[in-house]
């Protein structure tokens, strides 16, 4: 699905990380962890083509992202669901339309029943007509997750999906992501929340990657 080969990235200053190699096989569940500022968000951006590696190769569905034009990246992004750290919405459109936006921009028609079911799955039926700024942090995260999966993508990348929600809500979100993985989706969650990882380990076979000292390490079972 997604392969990184000896990848390095720098925002212009020193290298944020270098010689990072990893491979997300179909149907796997990964956590990406590390201290704040280690470059988790940056690594995810490399994975979905928002940034291009300064060295090494990033392959998305077998295609080198460096060779892709912007429109081709847009095309590939329809197969990757991304939950952004700062969930960005079109604030002038109701939540339901925001969630359906990936369908809209790709010219596909979703049925109202599918949208309804998806809203029910993330528990946002009552908020469908509200504007994004009126939602709470947890509701925004769930709306972002619903938007990420509406195209039924093969891969789901979630950046701190439980960033600013309470423990119960983060458990609900985690459950949703585990459900998606059981449906066969590849899932990668970037988080600094070790509690979340521990909670997940009892429910799903997850590999943990730790980004530290400019390198990626596979973390042991004992966190």
């Amino acid at each position: 699905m997604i392969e990184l080969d000896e990848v390095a990235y720098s925002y212009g200053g020193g290298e944020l990380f270098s010689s990072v190699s990893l491979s997300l096989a179909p149907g796997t569940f990964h956590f990406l962890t590390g201290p704040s500022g280690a470059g988790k968000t940056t690594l995810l951006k490399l994975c979905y083509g928002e940034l291009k590696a300064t060295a090494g190769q990033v392959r998305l569905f077998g295609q080198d992202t460096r060779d892709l034009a912007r429109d081709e990246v847009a095309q590939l992004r329809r197969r990757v669901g991304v939950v952004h750290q700062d969930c960005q919405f079109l604030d002038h459109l109701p939540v339901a339309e925001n969630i359906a936006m990936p369908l809209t921009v790709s010219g596909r028609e979703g049925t109202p029943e599918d949208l309804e079911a998806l809203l029910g799955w993330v528990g946002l039926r009552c908020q469908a007509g509200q504007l994004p700024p009126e939602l709470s942090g947890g509701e925004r995260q769930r709306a972002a997750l619903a938007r990420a999966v509406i195209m039924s993508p093969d891969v789901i990348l979630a950046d701190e999906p439980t960033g600013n929600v309470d423990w119960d809500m983060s458990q609900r979100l985690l459950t949703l992501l585990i459900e998606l993985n059981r449906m066969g989706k590849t899932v990668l969650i970037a988080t600094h929340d070790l509690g979340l990882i521990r909670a997940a380990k009892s429910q799903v076979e997850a590999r943990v990657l730790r980004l530290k000292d400019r390198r990626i390490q596979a973390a042991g079972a004992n966190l």
Partner: protein
Amino acid sequence: MEMLRRMLALLAGDPQADRAVPPTGFTARLTLMSAAAMALLAVFALAMSLATGRLADRWSEELARTSTLRISAPADQMQGQTVAAVELLRTTPGVAEARPLTAEEQRALLEPWFGPDLPVETLPIPQLIEIIEEGDGYDPAGLRARLQAEVPGAILDDHGRWREPLVQAAGRLRLLAWVSMGLIALTTAAMITLAANAALSANAQVIRVMRLVGARDVYIARAFVRRFTLRALIGATAGTVLGMLAVLALPSTDVAGGFLTGLGFQGWHWLLPLTIPPLAALVSFFATRQAALRSLGEQS
């Protein structure tokens, strides 16, 4: 053709794409107002171009057509002098034909003043000879000199000639009107490009989100292009209607005896200003498309 088809499809619309971009009041008003103002100016420029065209045509037609020779002589010499003048004209280079007007023709010329039953033959009125020119025409000074020597009663009236600079001026005015229309189109394009760029940068965040959910550049551009094209169309239609009403309200100048021409549109020319709104939409379509694709390319 392909472009036109795409433009029509665009105007028919994808309301979803439209909704993705929030409306911005300021750029909307700017586009509407400038399209209306430019269309109004375009109507005037078009009217001026058509009127000066008519003027130039009419004047140059008269110029090319004829001059007249008038022979005033005592009744007994009239016949002789007329024959002499025609003979002289036939041998003048630049004269294609010289023909004395018949009594009926002369009566017809006088009819508006004296009524239909004027006994022309008994009146001491001059005999008129119509001269039709060929090529660059004759040399009026040379002809006058010869006439003075051979036909003392002849007076050459080449009234058409003094209009020559006026015909030139009318031609220039027409050129000026065309240049104005070109400048109006360019200014419209520039204004709409500015407004579109303002709208694009005001919506940078919206564009970012649309990119994140997988929108391609053309999709994002379309939302802007459609909106600006529609606004230009509406504004230009309003401006054109106002302009046409203003032209309609111009006082008629035809009373000046056909020398001047009405400044308004005549006949089917009234249809010409109707092409202004679609042209404005076309200009806006390309200007916005260009601006959007370029700005999206930069915002990568």
